[in-house]
């Protein structure tokens, strides 16, 4: 299988600048220096590269939202990777830090930013120090500082460590955290591209998104686009965990069939067991049944696939994400969690509800109250102490959170709750059957 971004994974030498340069690294930086910034943006637009942090927004389009006359612009790279199941950015930074540094420098030149912050989750002490080393190597080569390879373009990259809070992965919480505050998401608008870090126009992109930029300049936007699907260009990293023979980070074309990823790329379900369910794009995406996995791994492929059942609120009432659009699933952050026939789905769901309750920042009532309530009630059901009425209650609480909060963390709790309840309702019912007492 073709590799672009994952070529150096597993090679301990690759993080040294000599090795990176010897294999063609920083060539695209030299090319970018001679390019008009708009030309770089056009190339990324043509590549149809979508953001790899979870929301899948086209990167080039986002860059185009910056006000044209902005004096100070920041690039903030989201390395807060905390969505359960996701471990691709950590892998990328660990093995190939210069790819990210080169991508950051090129992106800064494209958007006119003279300072980039890499916001890395605090626990990744080793990866933060690998990045620091890479940045200082790049500075010694004259890629950073008062000029970039002689071109008068002052540029600094700072590694900023978070301190343990999943919600800081949300871009506006991340900005507040970068500014030294509690990581509370901000109301949008204004969007970061207009008023972001230090109230200046700011582009927030994921580690993987930025790391593909030098590759796109190298092969050309259109060539990159042609590797993927109609509306989602190129390759992407996926992180496969759970009950497969070969868990790990892999690179596949956008739109690769999910079942092929599980069987061919990750070696299939471990020990010949039967597949029971798949969380396709990180813990926030609705779970899929085995016969729903024969779909392209892409935003349109999974969001609109007829073969994936729509998530219900309760008894046939479809859950609407936005006016008229119902929820199926999403490739999210590319984190595929595979569960075999032995897994207790109610237990998995309860564990996830614990996570969201723990991580809610607490500023919106539906999320603050709702996530804790889901957590308590879901555990009660899991422990066999729930009543049939509790199941409808779970659905109604989730429906009461989704779409009614400042940031998508509320949705991120509601969607898996409704997903598990819709797809594995029988298991929930089995845990409450026989308990006549009324619900919460």
């Amino acid at each position: 299988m073709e590799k672009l971004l994952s070529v150096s994974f597993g090679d301990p030498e690759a993080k040294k600048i000599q090795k990176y340069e010897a294999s063609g690294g920083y060539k695209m930086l030299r090319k970018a220096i001679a390019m008009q910034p708009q030309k770089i943006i056009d190339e990324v637009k043509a590549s149809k590269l979508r953001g790899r942090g979870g929301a899948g927004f086209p990167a080039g389009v986002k860059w185009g939202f910056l006000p044209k006359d902005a004096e100070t612009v920041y690039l903030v790279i989201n390395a807060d990777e905390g969505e359960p199941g996701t471990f691709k950015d950590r892998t990328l930074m660990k093995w190939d830090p210069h790819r990210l540094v080169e991508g950051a420098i090129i992106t800064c030149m494209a958007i006119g930013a003279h300072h980039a912050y890499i916001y890395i989750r605090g626990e990744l002490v080793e990866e933060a120090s690998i990045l620091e080393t890479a940045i200082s190597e790049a500075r010694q080569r004259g890629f950073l500082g008062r000029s970039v390879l002689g071109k008068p373009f002052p540029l600094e990259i700072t590694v900023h460590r978070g301190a343990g809070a999943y919600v800081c992965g949300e871009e506006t919480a991340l900005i507040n955290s970068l500014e030294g505050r509690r990581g509370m998401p901000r109301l949008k608008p204004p969007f970061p591209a207009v008023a972001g870090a230090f109230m200046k126009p700011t582009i927030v992109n994921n580690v993987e998104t930025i790391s593909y930029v030098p590759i796109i300049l190298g092969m050309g936007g259109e060539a990159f686009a042609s590797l993927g699907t109609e509306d989602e260009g190129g390759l992407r990293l996926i992180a496969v965990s759970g009950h497969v023979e070969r868990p790990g980070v892999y690179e596949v074309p956008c739109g690769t069939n999910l079942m092929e990823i599980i069987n061919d790329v990750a070696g299939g379900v471990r020990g010949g067991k039967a597949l029971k369910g798949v969380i396709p794009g990180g813990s926030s995406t609705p779970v899929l049944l085995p016969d729903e996995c024969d779909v392209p791994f892409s935003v349109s492929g999974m969001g609109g696939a007829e073969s994936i059942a729509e998530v219900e609120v309760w008894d046939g009432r479809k859950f609407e994400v936005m006016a008229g659009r119902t929820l199926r699933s999403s490739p999210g952050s590319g984190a595929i969690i595979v569960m075999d026939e032995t897994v207790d789905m109610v237990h998995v769901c309860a564990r996830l509800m614990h996570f969201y309750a723990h991580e809610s920042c607490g500023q919106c009532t539906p999320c603050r109250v709702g996530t804790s309530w889901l957590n308590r009630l879901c555990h009660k059901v899991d422990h066999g102490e729930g009543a049939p009425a509790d199941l409808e209650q779970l659905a109604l609480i989730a429906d009461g959170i989704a779409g009614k909060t400042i940031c998508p963390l509320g949705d991120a709790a509601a969607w898996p709750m409704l997903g598990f309840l819709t797809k594995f309702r029988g298991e929930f019912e089995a845990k409450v059957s026989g308990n006549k007492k009324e619900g919460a």
Partner: protein
Amino acid sequence: MEIPTETKNLILKRIAEIQTQYPDAQAACLPALHVAQDHVSYVTDDVLDLVADTLTLPPAFVQGVATFYTMYRKRRVGRYHLQLCTNVSCMLEGAEDLLAGLESHLGIGAGETTPDGMFTLDAVECLAACGTGPVLQINDRYHESMTLEKAVKLLDALKSGRDSSDLPTPNVDPDEIAAGAKAAPPAPDDKDE
């Protein structure tokens, strides 16, 4: 415990360097707390005051920040802080049994510190290493694909000093903790729910 002048000067020097990276003083709040905690072992009142003073921020603001993030320790932890991920991918690989095994091996529950001050055990959320679960973080280092057998070997080696690859939590004196543990039970402040 007041921060010794020498330590204080080290912290202040490092904070001054950090401040050059940001357009305002407040942005250095998180890094400053990291630096201070690294030297003092946990976020004491003195650490809060030092950071607030240095960055000219209200102490309540700094306290608000310090309490928001899980990595700022609000209590003394053992020489080795064991943080086991129990989120879904690790759970599928047996993290729950591993937690129970560690609890019984150490004779403490999650959220507690062994009476000898050596180990604090916590169950934590996803550590971004889900492909090699269960993941046990010991102070700053990740130990992946953990089993109870491997973990017990590791802990024994750390305890006896045979393994020093995991740097101990700074300024932790197990004897002091042991004395404190006898005087008063550890506050269960950081436990979930």
